[in-house]
């Protein structure tokens, strides 16, 4: 399809309902809510792979302990990444709706397959987690874990395909109607970019490595986690993170080479900023590799989170470059402001997210560092009261507004 027709198609496909706030708000939220999602993807994939690898060496107490811990990390991580993925997807469907829907419809069977493979993959992993305790864990569960991880990789690949196909609207009609034959099966994967996919896999190695160093630091106050084990985890983490960061640099260069030259991604400052940042990351992990990283875990993890933030921006810059020839800019989206629902969101994220989320995270963090029963300190206690109050007030307020509007409109 030619550029003009593709541009016209994209604008026709945009939802005529418009969006209820400025597109920049959605774009920023889309980019930055993706960061925690991808971080948990990275940590979960890395932890699952490590959980399995360590399982094969479980005759060694350190590896056995690590296998159990990482199996649990992957179990919690996958459930969180699913939830965290909802927000960026919601905002993507708000401002990049043509790209997302068309790409999904073209590979619809894979979209549904994603749900079932994720479900059975997770149940397999959960079973592996339930059985992976002590040095007498049966060997066959290894294959259950391998199956679970394979499903996670497959699901990650499906997500990659859906995102990537959305970048090529000029090919959608050709993919849907090859040789004039209408393909409504949704069975085909039409496009993928292995080097881009590989970059995110390498990112999993880096982020997981940094996570492992931080894990070693987090448990240093727990008497039931020996210093030797924690030093073992930190050393392993710094070695892994270094390999991941180097691989990311190589794969990012490969990715940029694979992007069509017309998009001029090499001259974009964001590309260079990311490359330089990755270089700093390589240097940081190279230093960490050769020294004791005790006390450095949170810093290195924060550095990796910063990298994820830059990757998120780079990814959006790239999408904008892909869409530019078709005059598709999210900033042109029709806006019909809906202030009350936007205020509701702000109050919810600040009030409930801040107070209840803050309460639970602080509580889990503090209780996790105590071996016996944790007695809440004044801060946690106040946060607890705030959490209940904020949630109850939210429910009462929403209902009150609802009843008032309901009576006004239907009375």
């Amino acid at each position: 399809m030619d550029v003009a027709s593709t541009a016209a198609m994209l604008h026709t496909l945009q939802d005529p309902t418009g969006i209820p706030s400025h597109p920049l708000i959605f774009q920023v939220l889309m980019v930055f809510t993706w960061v925690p999602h991808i971080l948990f993807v990275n940590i979960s994939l890395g932890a699952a792979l490590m959980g399995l690898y360590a399982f094969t060496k479980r005759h060694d107490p350190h590896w056995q302990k690590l296998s159990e811990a990482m199996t649990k990390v992957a179990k919690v991580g996958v459930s969180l990444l699913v939830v965290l993925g909802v927000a960026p997807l919601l905002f993507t469907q708000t401002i990049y709706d043509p790209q997302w829907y068309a790409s999904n419809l073209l590979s619809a069977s894979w979209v549904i397959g994603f749900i079932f493979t994720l479900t059975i993959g997770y149940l397999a992993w959960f079973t592996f987690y339930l059985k992976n305790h002590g040095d007498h864990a049966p060997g066959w569960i290894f294959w259950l874990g391998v199956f679970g991880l394979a499903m996670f990789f497959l699901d990650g690949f499906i997500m990659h395909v859906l995102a990537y196909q959305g970048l090529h609207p000029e090919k959608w009609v050709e993919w849907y109607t090859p040789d004039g034959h209408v393909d409504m099966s949704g069975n085909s994967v039409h496009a993928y970019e292995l080097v881009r996919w590989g970059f995110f896999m390498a990112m999993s190695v880096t982020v997981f490595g940094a996570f492992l160093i931080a894990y070693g630091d987090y448990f240093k106050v727990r008497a039931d986690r020996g210093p030797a084990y924690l030093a073992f985890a930190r050393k392993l983490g710094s070695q892994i993170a270094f390999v991941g960061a180097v691989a990311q640099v190589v794969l990012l260069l490969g990715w940029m080479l694979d992007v069509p030259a017309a998009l001029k991604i090499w001259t974009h400052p964001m590309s260079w900023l990311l490359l330089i940042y990755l270089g700093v990351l390589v240097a940081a992990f190279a230093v960490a590799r050769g020294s004791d990283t005790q006390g450095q875990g949170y810093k290195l993890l924060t550095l990796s989170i910063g990298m994820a933030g830059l990757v998120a921006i780079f990814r959006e810059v790239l999408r904008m470059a892909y869409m530019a020839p078709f005059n598709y800019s999210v900033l042109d989206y029709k806006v019909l402001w809906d202030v009350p629902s936007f205020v509701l969101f702000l109050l919810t994220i600040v009030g409930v997210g801040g107070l209840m989320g803050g309460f639970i995270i602080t509580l889990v963090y503090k209780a996790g560092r105590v071996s016996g029963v944790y007695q809440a300190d004044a801060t946690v206690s106040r946060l607890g009261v705030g959490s209940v109050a904020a949630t109850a007030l939210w429910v009462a307020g929403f209902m009150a507004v609802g009843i008032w509007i309901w009576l006004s409109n239907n009375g």
Partner: protein
Amino acid sequence: MLEMLGLYPQWYVPGIGTAWVMGIIGTIHVLASHTSVGAAWLFALLAQKSVSENKPEIMLYLKKYGMFLLVFSYIIGSITGPGIWYSVTVASPRGISGLIHNFVWLWASEWVFFFVEVIGVYAMVYLIGKIDNKTYLKLAWSFALASWATMILIVPILSFMMWPGNDQWYSTGSTFDAAFNLNYFAHLGIRTAFMFAVAGAVGGIIAATLKDRETRIEITRFLSKMGLAGMFLMLVMFMWYTATLPENARLIMETQMMPKYGSTLGALLLATLVYFIFTAWKPMYLRQGVAVVMTLAIGLFGLWPEERSRESMRKPYVAGQYIYSNQFFSRDVPGKGVVSDMPLIEAKGVLATNYFVPEELRKITPENQLRAGEVLTKIMCANCHSVESDGALRPLPPLFGHSDEPKMIQAYLDGALYHGKIPYMPRMPLPEDERAAMALYIASLSGYTPPAVAVSQATHSSSAKGVN
């Protein structure tokens, strides 16, 4: 008038159709998610009882129940939740898009609750006995309220799918006018009641395994009372719910849903009441297998008909009585600047105005008539009908009496459908040549061979291209 239609590619699932794909995932999700919300309240109520009556054994039950809650409701619920979203994305892209663009901030608010709920569920289970009781209760009540809030926030969208219930939203386009539609509170009431009932049944699966007799009796009775209260509330709310439905939905419910599912739902209702009364009376007789069967029965004989009925009763719409189930906009919505697709279809048809139609099918000829008919039929009808005779989703050939006479079929398309006279069917004001092509294709499903195809087959092996 529009120039082109904003239609996406079509996904066709032979036999069961996309509606069943959504229904299957939806049923699993509703069972899991309502269980999870109900269990959150059960957790809070029992934790409160444990602390105020100083009964630590109840906390042990919660610890056991919590792990089950994680495996059963939370994991399945949290994956099938986006699963519904994904299935609707590929089954009804303009429908879900319309909902997202209307309700994005409500959905984003729900995500906040969803997130705190998910980290909360881990905290609830793993911190039992590891933090002081007072803090645990704060956690439990925050969690219960947050879980219910996810329901409070999703029901506006589900009930708007049925209809706004008044004209306000069409002119204002306001999210709150859409959210607090006529159907909202009754719908929320039913789901809230159901969450208590299903949590009562699911809770029994673990309660039946408790070793301590006193605790087992106490908890089983608690569950039975909660289940009975839920059932009673559900009946009251159902009566209110039916009073808030649009005319087309009531018609479908009375003429199609009740004859099809009425006796099953009645029997299930009776069985559930008997189950809760019996387990309240003789708690020690409750066996785990019975509780499992009861839970599955609620899912299979209660939720599946409910999900299918709700989907059917919305017909011919999929959202807000402005998006038809076949993805066309049926009317203008001035408050949102939405323009009806009907005038464009009437003037130019669907083939010439849909980007996802091959160039050679844009103009109908005797040679491509059958293929054009197939594409059109699937675009116009496949959201609600299988084209296979033995398809599970209201198959077209039997609905036309297996007719192989194109003219007879076209008479129906020319009359009732063209003018939108069937209350549960979308209006289809297609041009004459497109109606003829559809009629030809539908007749071919029952054995009719169009002349152009017959000639082609007789002279040489045809390379006619079809649709997968």
